[in-house]
Structure formats: structure tokens, C-alpha cells
């Protein structure tokens, strides 16, 4: 074969390798997740078997083996993560402190941060995570599915006159979902407006009198993790002047269902069923 | 019946540490009794036991033939007053307030001091020359001024027995001599029994009717000053040498420590 042919073959092979390298480099096989929403996303993308480390509060879908615990709610266990030799660590701005991220990066790990504060950001992050994991088409598909289900909800419940609701995330002090949060966005799909949207903080800590003044039609009580689960010991328990209490429209649900991420449509469907009774 | 306050064979121990072993001492009406001895002999302890503030581990203290432990606290406080060696007062009380506290054994359960009480307190303060600082914060007074206020407090208690623990330790010579005069006056004119722990041999000689010398928790000598303050006894008890002299004009005995 002539020299030209040899060079051409060499060049082609080189180019093929060069172009496939990014594909190989973009497909991390060992993933550590620092937020339950991210873990949910990775499982929903069908890439759950690549997870080697998750947080204490993450869950795996039924039957799957739960990966090692590598982080607390805000604190990554740096040494353990390094020991797991991940190709990538995925965290969020809200949960992981600057200092711990820097520590992981200094240890030579590749760390990517995505926001999950609003619904819009959550959907964007799902796509970006799937891109970083080398499967961008899966992310697009998942996003499409989620948006589809949300739109269906909106069609079904969106044309009613919206009811005033508050979403309670915490007790002592009472913490509500305020404007600019994913719950604030999400409940709009099932015919609710957030009574706390006028406050200027994303998670206002209020006292009983503010709740009385909001006078919501519906209270979505996501404080179940705070024991006791008993309704009797909620601050609004016997306050009949609050419409939601008077009419018995206080709906307690598992906050884990309402994580920003692929679980949202499921959670919202269940919540809507509880509210509207169908 | 001469004896006002007497201890019968009292012993006292701090924790496991015995300080007094079987001491019997009596204080008579109208006398000034000096309690002396080397450091650590148990003088303050004896005074505290006599006042009823610290109950003895064995033996009895009798106030006019009644055992102290049978007398209720408030009643005892109307009969016996003690001026302790140190008083540290960490609060901004005025001197008058401190002296008025001496009237508390006489106040009704939830009462306030009456005009009479204030009058008695002011008189007590006048007797020790501290009435000028009646309204001043006690913490702003010097050691000697504070000591006089506490003495006034004890006087305001109107006691029958007045016990003082080294009262002259912060006082200058004028106030020391005033205090000595006061003690003799209280004893002779008011009939009080005054017991006083002191170190100064000359002061004791001129002020006291009787002296008790303690050594290592036991009575080493007892009697009139001229009988007790002798070179032999002082050397035996203190291990120090003195020489006795007599002032030719007044006939008063004085002693000088001999050290080379």
C-alpha cells in the first residue's frame, strides 16, 4: 500500500478514536450523589447501577441494592467518597457547603453542582445531569415525560378557581414553602395558589398568627418526618378560624414524595386525588 | 449567777481535722474576756462554737444554763452577737442597710425596720464612729471602716454577749483605743459579756478582766492578765520571749517582745 493510503488509514483511525474518546470520557461509570433529588434522577434515567455512593436520606427503588452512604444532608463524608473512587460527584447548591465541595475538588475529584430550587431549575438540572452522565437523550425523554404529566394535571385541575393553600415543611418554627420554590411552582398545576407567595423569603418561618391571617383553604402538611405524626400536636390543631382546619382540609403526606425531581408528578397526582377526592 | 455563756468540754473538728479538744471556758456578765493563743490554736473556732454558729462535735454550750441547741435561732440571735474575722460583701449595700440587718432578730416575720430600729442602728454607728458613711456603698469603704460597720451591726443586735474575732486587725491606733474603751464601757456600764480574740498582749492587758490562753485546741492558762501574761507562760505557749515592765506613773503593766 502506498504511503498516502497508510497515512489516510492512520488519520481515519486516529480521528475515530479522537471522536469516540469524548464519548468514553463522558460516560462516568461510578457516581456519587449528594442529594436525594439527584439520586432519584439517576435512577429515573435508568443509570442507577452506576451509583456507588448516596446520602443517608436517599432511597433506592424497590428491590435495588442501596449503595454506600457517603453523605449527610449537608455534609459529604469526604474520606469515604475519596475511597469510593468515583468518576463524578454530583451535588446541589442548596445542600452542599462551598467548603466541602472545594475539599472534594482539591482531592482530585470531578464535582458538578446543579440547582433544584424551582421547578424550572429542577427540569433543567435533570437534562444537564443526563448530559454529564453521557446519556443526554434519556434526560430529554424524562423531562418530556414529566412535563407531559404536569400538563395533564393542569388540564384536569387547572381551570377551577384556584384554592388558597400553604405547604408546611417544618415545625418549631413553622416553615412554609414561599415564592420561588419548587412547591410554589408545582401546586399551581393542581389548581392551588400559594397563600405565602407574598412573603419575600423563600422559606418563611412564621408564627401562628401569620397562619391565621393567611386563612388558607387547604393545608398541605409535609412535616410528617417531625414526630409525632399525630395531628393533635400541630400548632393549628384546634384553631377553627382557619378555613382549612374548620373544613378538615389538612392533608398530611410524606415529604419524601415531594422531592424536587422525577417524583414530583407522582406526588402531585396523589395530592390532587386527596384534595379533590377522585 | 455570774456566768452568761459557757462551754462545757467542747470539741470541734473540721472534716477529719480536730481543732478543739475538750475546752471549757466561761464568759461572765459584765466582764471583758480575752481569748488568745498562737496561730491555729483554735481561737476563732472557739468563738464560733460559743456563738452557736457552729455546733460542737461533742460537749455543750450553755447560755444562762440553757443548752444552745434548745434555743431557737432568732432568740439566740437576740442574746449573742458575733463580729467575724472577715466579712466579704459582694453586693452594693449601704452601711446603714448592713447595720439595720442586725435588727432582723427583732423584726416581725415579713416586716420592715421601724423608726426606732433606724434610731438604734444610728446610735450603734455613732458608738463606733462610722455614722458619716451611713449612706455609702459598703464596698467603697476601707477595711477598717468596714470592720467598724460590722461591729455596729453586732451592737444593733442589742446582745447580752458580744463576741469579736480580732476586731482591731484593720483599725488604726485611735480607733483601736476607742474600741477598747467601747468594750469596757459595754461590759461595765451595760453589763454585757464581751469576749474578744486578740493578738496584742498589751491591748489584752489593758482591756481584759480575764484572759484564756489556748494552745493546740486546749486551755493552756486562764486568769487575770497579770497572772497569765508572764514570761514563763508566754514562752511556754507561744515559744516567744518577752519582758515585763511597769509604767511608773500609771502603774500599768506592759510587755516587750525580746528578739535578737
Amino acid at each position, binding site marked *: 500500500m502506498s504511503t498516502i493510503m497508510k497515512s489516510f488509514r492512520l488519520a481515519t483511525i486516529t480521528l475515530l478514536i479522537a471522536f469516540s474518546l469524548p464519548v468514553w470520557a463522558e460516560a462516568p461509570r461510578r457516581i456519587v450523589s449528594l442529594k436525594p433529588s439527584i439520586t432519584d434522577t439517576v435512577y429515573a434515567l435508568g443509570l442507577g447501577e452506576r451509583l456507588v455512593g448516596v446520602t443517608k436520606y436517599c432511597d433506592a427503588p424497590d428491590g435495588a441494592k442501596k449503595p454506600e452512604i457517603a453523605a449527610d444532608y449537608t455534609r459529604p463524608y469526604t474520606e469515604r467518597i475519596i475511597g469510593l473512587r468515583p468518576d463524578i460527584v454530583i451535588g446541589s447548591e442548596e445542600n452542599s457547603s462551598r467548603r466541602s465541595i472545594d475539599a472534594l475538588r482539591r482531592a482530585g475529584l470531578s464535582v458538578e453542582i446543579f440547582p433544584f430550587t424551582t421547578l424550572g431549575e429542577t427540569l433543567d438540572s435533570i437534562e444537564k445531569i443526563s448530559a454529564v452522565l453521557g446519556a443526554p437523550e434519556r434526560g430529554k425523554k424524562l423531562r418530556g415525560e414529566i412535563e407531559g404529566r404536569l400538563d395533564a394535571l393542569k388540564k384536569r385541575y387547572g381551570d377551577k378557581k384556584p384554592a388558597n393553600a400553604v405547604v408546611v415543611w417544618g415545625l418549631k418554627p413553622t416553615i412554609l414553602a414561599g415564592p420561588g420554590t419548587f412547591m410554589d411552582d408545582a401546586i399551581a398545576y393542581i389548581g392551588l395558589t400559594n397563600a405565602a407567595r407574598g412573603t419575600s423569603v423563600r422559606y418563611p418561618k412564621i408564627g401562628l398568627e401569620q397562619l391565621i391571617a393567611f386563612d388558607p383553604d387547604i393545608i398541605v402538611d409535609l412535616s410528617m418526618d*417531625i414526630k409525632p405524626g399525630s395531628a393533635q400536636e400541630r*400548632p393549628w390543631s384546634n*384553631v377553627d378560624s382557619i378555613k382549612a382546619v374548620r373544613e378538615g382540609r389538612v392533608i398530611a403526606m410524606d415529604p419524601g414524595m415531594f422531592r424536587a425531581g422525577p417524583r414530583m408528578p407522582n406526588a402531585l397526582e396523589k395530592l390532587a386525588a386527596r384534595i379533590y377526592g377522585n | 449567777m455570774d456566768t452568761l455563756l459557757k462551754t462545757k468540754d467542747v470539741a470541734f473538728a473540721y472534716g477529719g481535722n480536730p481543732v478543739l479538744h475538750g475546752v471549757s471556758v466561761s464568759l461572765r456578765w459584765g466582764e471583758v474576756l480575752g481569748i488568745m493563743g498562737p496561730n491555729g490554736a483554735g481561737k476563732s473556732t472557739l468563738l464560733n462554737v460559743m456563738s452557736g454558729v457552729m455546733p460542737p462535735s461533742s460537749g455543750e454550750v450553755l447560755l444562762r444554763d440553757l443548752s444552745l441547741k434548745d434555743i431557737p435561732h432568732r432568740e439566740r440571735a437576740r442574746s449573742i452577737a458575733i463580729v467575724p474575722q472577715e466579712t466579704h460583701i459582694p453586693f452594693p449595700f449601704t452601711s446603714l442597710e448592713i447595720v439595720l440587718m442586725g435588727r*432582723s432578730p427583732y423584726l416581725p416575720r415579713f416586716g420592715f425596720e421601724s423608726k426606732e430600729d433606724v434610731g438604734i442602728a444610728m446610735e450603734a454607728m455613732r458608738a463606733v464612729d462610722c455614722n458619716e458613711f451611713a449612706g455609702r456603698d459598703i464596698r467603697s469603704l476601707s477595711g477598717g471602716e468596714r470592720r467598724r460597720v460590722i461591729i455596729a451591726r453586732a451592737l444593733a443586735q442589742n446582745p447580752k454577749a458580744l463576741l469579736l474575732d480580732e476586731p482591731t486587725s484593720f483599725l488604726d491606733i485611735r480607733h483601736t483605743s476607742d474600741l477598747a474603751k467601747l468594750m469596757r464601757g459595754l461590759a461595765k456600764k451595760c453589763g454585757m459579756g464581751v469576749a474578744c480574740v486578740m493578738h496584742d498582749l498589751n491591748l489584752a492587758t489593758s482591756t481584759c478582766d480575764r484572759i484564756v490562753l489556748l494552745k493546740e485546741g486546749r486551755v493552756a492558762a486562764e486568769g487575770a492578765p497579770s497572772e497569765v501574761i508572764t514570761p514563763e507562760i508566754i514562752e511556754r505557749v507561744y515559744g516567744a520571749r518577752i519582758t515585763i515592765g511597769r509604767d511608773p506613773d500609771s502603774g500599768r503593766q506592759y510587755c516587750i517582745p525580746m528578739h535578737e
Partner: protein
Amino acid sequence: MEIEMRSHLTSRRWIWINAGLLAFLIASIAFALFLGSEEASLRAALSGDERAYAIIFVSRLPRILLAALVGMALASAGGAFQALLRNQLADPFILGVSGGAALGAVAAVGAGLGFTLQSIAAFGGAIVSMLAIFNIGNARRRLSPTTLLLTGVIFNAFCFALILFVNSIVTMEEAYQILFLLMGNIEPMGMGTIAVLALCVLGGFAMLCACSWRMNLLAMGDADAASMGVNVARLRAVVFIAASLMVGAAVAASGLIGFVGLAVPHIMRLLTGADHRLLVPASGLAGAAFLVLADAAARTLLMHTGYATELPVGVITAMVGAPLFMILLRRQQKTI
């Protein structure tokens, strides 16, 4: 010869000052009732406006009563402990009872118990610590200041170490609750709980006021007090128990609210003198009013700003109390 007005306490002064403070307390309660981030008028509340009624009587009134009781407990107990320890720097948390109470509450949080049970556990913790400290400190039957102080400090340190331990093994929500508890907060409670608290606090307060006649003597020293007719061992025990029960109840109801027990008696001492017969009741009343006003501020201050959150009341008590205290102290130092 002139005697200064403040030279000693008379019954007239006692009545006037306490009556004045009581009036101030009532005025503070009324003021706090109508101060809030939400619009509510009494007329509306009483003429059938359910929302206004709920805001004033269901949300604010119990909080205000709680603040008054806790403030009274902490301030009067603080004054009593200062006399007991013969130290103006003592605060009601120094003797270790609060550590036990906090530990009780935290343990209840960790065990997943409900809010009422947490308060009961806190009070139980207070009682257990009180008995333990009393027994340890009662060597030679005297509850001496140094022993009490050392025992209390060590006990507190131990309790807080255990609290930190529990804090590190519980869930995040529970850890947040623990923080809330330790910071001290006034929250609306059922009137039944308030009634029980009132029983403890008012009972203890009455006891301390009764003991205040002898507290002056106690503050002189054990020997001095005994020589003036005080049964020292019994008085120390009664004051310790009454004050500890009040502090235990206060911590069980509202966590650890700092500064009230230290600064209020100190400030009152600068204003009304050191005589405990006046200081103890005056501190109690002033402490109640102070905490009522501080809580009103805590719940309204940030509400209309960009933060829209209720502050923990301990922030207000420190931020207001500390400068007030410094001003009074400077003024007093100039006169000595």
C-alpha cells in the same frame, strides 16, 4: 443629719415600686396583645370577627402569658441564685438544673416523643438534676457556694456533651428541633399547659419572696447569717429547691432563653438597691414585663422587612439587655 432616701427600704417604698412594676407589666401585656404583624383590633375580635379573635386570643394571649411567666421565673430565680452563691454574676442556668432540663427535652426529641412529652421530659430532667446536685452539693449539710457552683458547672458541661452526642446521631429535622429548643423560644401553648406552668412559677415566686427577708442576711455570709438568727442550712435548701423548680418549668416550656436571669436582677439592683426584700419581687415583675416586650419585638421586628421571619426571643433579650446594662453600669461607676 441627713439620711439619703435610698438608705434603707421602707414598707412604703416596697409597695410603691412593686405596684408600679405590676402596672408596667399589665401595660406591657396590653401593648403586646395589640402589637403584631397582623391587623387585629380588640373590637373586631369581640364582635364576632373570628380571625381577629383567633389572632388575639388563640395565638397572642397564650404566648404573652407564657413570656410573662417565664420572664418572672428566670429573673426572680436569677436574683435568688445570686444571693445563694453570693455572686452578682450568677445566672439561673449556672447551677446545672437547666442542663438537665435541656437534656431531658433533647432525649425526648431523639426518642421521637411528641411536643407535650418533650416538655414533661424536660421538667423531669430538671427535677432529677436538682436532686442530684442537691445531694452532691449538700456535703456538710451546707450547700456551700463553691461546691454548688462547681457541681453545677460540671453537671452542665456533662449534660451538654450528651446533648451534642444526641444531636449528631438524630435526623436533620430532629437536629433542627434541638437547635430551636436550645435557642429558647416562646410559642403559643394550650391554656392547660399555661395553667400548670403558672402554678409552678407563681408558687415558686411566692416562696422566694417569702425567703427574701432572710436573703439579705444570707448574702453576708453563712456565719454572719447564722449569728443573726437564720437557719442557714434550711434557708439555702428552700431557696435552691424553689428557684430550681421555677427554672426547670421555664426551660421545659420555652427552652434556654438567655440573659433575662442574669441581667434583669442586676439592672434592678442598680435601680432599686441591693435589699432582696424588694429585689426579688421587683426582678420577677420586671423580668416578666421585659420578656413580654422582647417577645413582642421578636415576633414583629423582621416581619415587614425582607426576611419575613420570627426571631428567637433570646436575640432580642441580649441585644436590648446588654446595652441597657452597660449604660446603667457606667452611670453607677461614676458615682462611686
